[in-house]
């Protein structure tokens, strides 16, 4: 397409048609202050701080597309006076007192105040009070801090596809609301937390990380989430010089486009279960703490003919180490073979228009995949069909909803759809057969555990059988329930286990942000989770445990 010649601050530039003045100015490294503008969201020009002067007229640069003969000036006295007036109005409209605000230091409104040297109010201070919505487990909405930029509303629909947030009333009385104006905690919110991430002020904040630290007091570690096999790109904010994480944000430059789910943003920050803080032995139905050397000695005696069970929470490095030491005695405690192999990737999902979801609620697990298909559906360029026997919250955005036993009937109705992608986790044998009959389908399997694919790559197969000595390595030992009765069982695990009475020896291993490692994501690509924290408890990595074992008894 032919480029358009325009002038910005007297400088001639050739601009691509369709681009906005703001985008061109950014490309030229010229600064235009913004507030409601947020890169991945559609611009709306409501805050009006980004105004510039074009041939004597003030226009919002975020919504004005380049046009021939434009002669744009960014900082004329008229522009600056108007911006200052807008700021005065914004600051006095509601309660924008920084001193006790969680967002102080990160707040974009505050930064604009500093940029324009605002040192007093020219209007009377606010009078209206709005009640704070604390009803949600993770998120606080304080409308008193809101500048009505609608970034949260746009992010919730355009990016995350949840369509929970909206607004009511008009003008300065506008309120950001959840669903039909019910408390956020009672709404259909999936706790993805994207609204917190995009809010420029303290209007939407994160409960857990309140006052944990400003961005300048943190270091940001780029990592991948290991809560599920999607392996979303995350930015982990760690307080400098201290051993805790302030918050986890989604990485806008990665495949997940900044979106996370409840597990990735919040789940990873709460200890799900109490941590195992020392090696423990159970004799005469009593738990007794022992030291590491003793634990290693006991383990060494049981190791010879033990069967080793692992789960999919282990990283590639750990799996290959275990495999090297125990060879063909290693089994996956859980199913890891997909019922039908995937033939598409996340990228294909983003491009596709038709989705068939079988037996999985994508608002509760694999949430980011849910976002990708829901936002298509709500934008009117995607159709979702859901098959499930349980309550499935995707039903509300699905074009068709069927029971699992209606698979054949449903697929028959859908057979004219253009290459729909089937999204599934488990499938019955019968349904596998039915699905294989339809040649227009594409398949996207959701692996059961974070590193299920890694288990397959290491050729660790699923099997459960009784054995005299059992060693479990991982986080989720529930699968062992039936076979544990008379075995001597050792668990290398980070948590206090509920069924501890079935175990004879427990050795704590590192968990979560205390360890680093790679795993295979849903697309089969290797991604890395970075170490962020020091372990607060006595815990060990597998390498150390095996090295020590080797000293006692050659492995």
């Amino acid at each position, binding site marked *: 397409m032919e480029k358009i010649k325009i002038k910005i601050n007297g400088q001639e530039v050739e601009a691509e048609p369709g681009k906005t003045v703001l985008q061109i100015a950014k490309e030229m490294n010229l600064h235009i202050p913004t507030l409601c503008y947020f890169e991945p969201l559609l611009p709306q020009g409501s805050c009006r701080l980004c105004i510039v002067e074009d041939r004597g007229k003030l226009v919002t640069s975020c919504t004005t597309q380049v046009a021939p003969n434009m002669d744009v000036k960014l900082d004329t006295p008229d522009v600056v006076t108007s911006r200052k007036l807008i700021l005065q109005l914004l600051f006095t409209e509601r309660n924008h007192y920084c*001193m006790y605000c969680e967002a102080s*230091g990160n707040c974009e409104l*505050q930064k604009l105040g*500093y940029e324009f*040297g605002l*040192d007093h*109010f020219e209007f*009377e*201070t*606010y009078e209206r009070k709005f009640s704070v919505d604390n009803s949600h487990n993770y998120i606080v909405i304080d409308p008193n801090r809101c500048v009505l930029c609608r970034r949260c509303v746009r992010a919730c629909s355009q990016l995350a596809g949840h369509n929970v947030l909206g607004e009511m009333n008009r003008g300065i009385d506008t309120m950001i609301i959840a669903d039909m104006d019910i408390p956020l905690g009672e709404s259909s919110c999936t706790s993805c937390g994207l609204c917190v991430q995009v809010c420029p002020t303290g209007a939407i904040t994160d409960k857990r990380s309140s006052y944990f630290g400003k961005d300048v007091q943190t270091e940001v570690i780029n990592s991948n989430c290991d809560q599920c096999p999607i392996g979303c790109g995350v930015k982990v904010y760690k307080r400098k010089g201290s051993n805790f994480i302030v918050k986890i944000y989604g990485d806008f430059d990665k495949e997940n486009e900044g979106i996370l789910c409840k597990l990735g943003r919040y789940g990873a920050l709460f200890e799900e279960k109490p941590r195992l803080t020392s090696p423990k032995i159970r004799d005469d139905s009593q738990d007794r703490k022992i030291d590491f050397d003793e634990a290693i000695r006991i383990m060494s005696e049981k190791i010879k003919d033990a069967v080793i069970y692992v789960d999919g929470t282990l990283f590639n490095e750990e799996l290959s180490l275990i495999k090297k030491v125990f060879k063909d005695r290693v089994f996956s405690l859980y199913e890891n073979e997909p019922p039908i192999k995937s033939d598409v990737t996340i990228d294909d999902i983003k491009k596709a228009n038709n989705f068939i979801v079988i037996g999985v609620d994508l608002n509760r697990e694999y949430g980011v995949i849910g976002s990708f298909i829901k936002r298509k559906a709500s934008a009117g360029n995607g159709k979702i069909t859901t098959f499930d026997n349980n309550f499935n919250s995707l039903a509300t955005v699905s074009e068709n909803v069927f029971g699992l036993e209606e698979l054949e009937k449903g697929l028959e109705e859908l057979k004219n759809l253009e290459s729909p992608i089937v999204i599934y986790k488990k499938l019955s044998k019968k349904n596998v057969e039915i699905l294989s009959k339809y040649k227009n389908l594409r398949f996207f399997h959701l692996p059961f555990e974070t590193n299920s694919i890694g288990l397959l790559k290491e050729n660790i197969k699923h099997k459960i059988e009784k054995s005299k000595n059992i060693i479990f390595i991982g986080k989720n030992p529930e699968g062992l329930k039936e076979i544990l009765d008379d075995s001597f069982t050792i668990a290398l695990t980070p948590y206090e286990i509920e069924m501890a009475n079935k175990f004879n020896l427990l050795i704590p291993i590192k968990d979560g942000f205390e360890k680093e490692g790679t795993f295979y994501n849903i697309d089969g690509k290797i991604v890395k989770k970075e170490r962020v924290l020091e372990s607060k408890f006595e815990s060990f990595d597998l390498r150390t445990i095996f090295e020590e074992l080797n000293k006692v008894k050659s492995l």
Partner: protein
Amino acid sequence: MKKIKIASIWCEGCSGCHMSFLDMDERLVELINKGLEINATPITDLKVPDDDTDIGIIEGAVATDHHEEEVKMMREKCKFIVAIGDCAVFGGIVTMRNYTPVDELLKRGYIETESTVDGKIPTSPELGKLLPKVKAVNEVIKVDYYIPGCPPSADAIYHVLNEILEGRVPMLTGELLKYE
């Protein structure tokens, strides 16, 4: 160098700004040696500023009828008025009481609070009357300079006083301009 006579008061504030003033530490001694003359303030026993006071520093918002009288008195006595701290400059955290009618505030404070026994709302004429709405100082009198911050840093206060002593108009930029 010309002497600069300053006076200060605090209205509806927490005195944190005055503490930040003292946080100039040795630089306060330096300013005094340079010609800063400290007239009536809460740390001295002079109760009324002299008529030829150059700078009147006001901490705190205007919340009672007494405060209104006092800031007006400061305006009369002082050539320049400096509003110091977020309460004086913007109204600050105490404006949160604007949300609630005065009698409800007093009821909570003097009758309902759990440790209060046989409470009543004090009504003595010696006590100031709460205004229905807490105001920033510039809603009551003309203010010449502003030092926002909760509290403003000692550096910001030093900068402003030093600029005035050196005969320049004070401007706050960079790290000196903060609202928290």
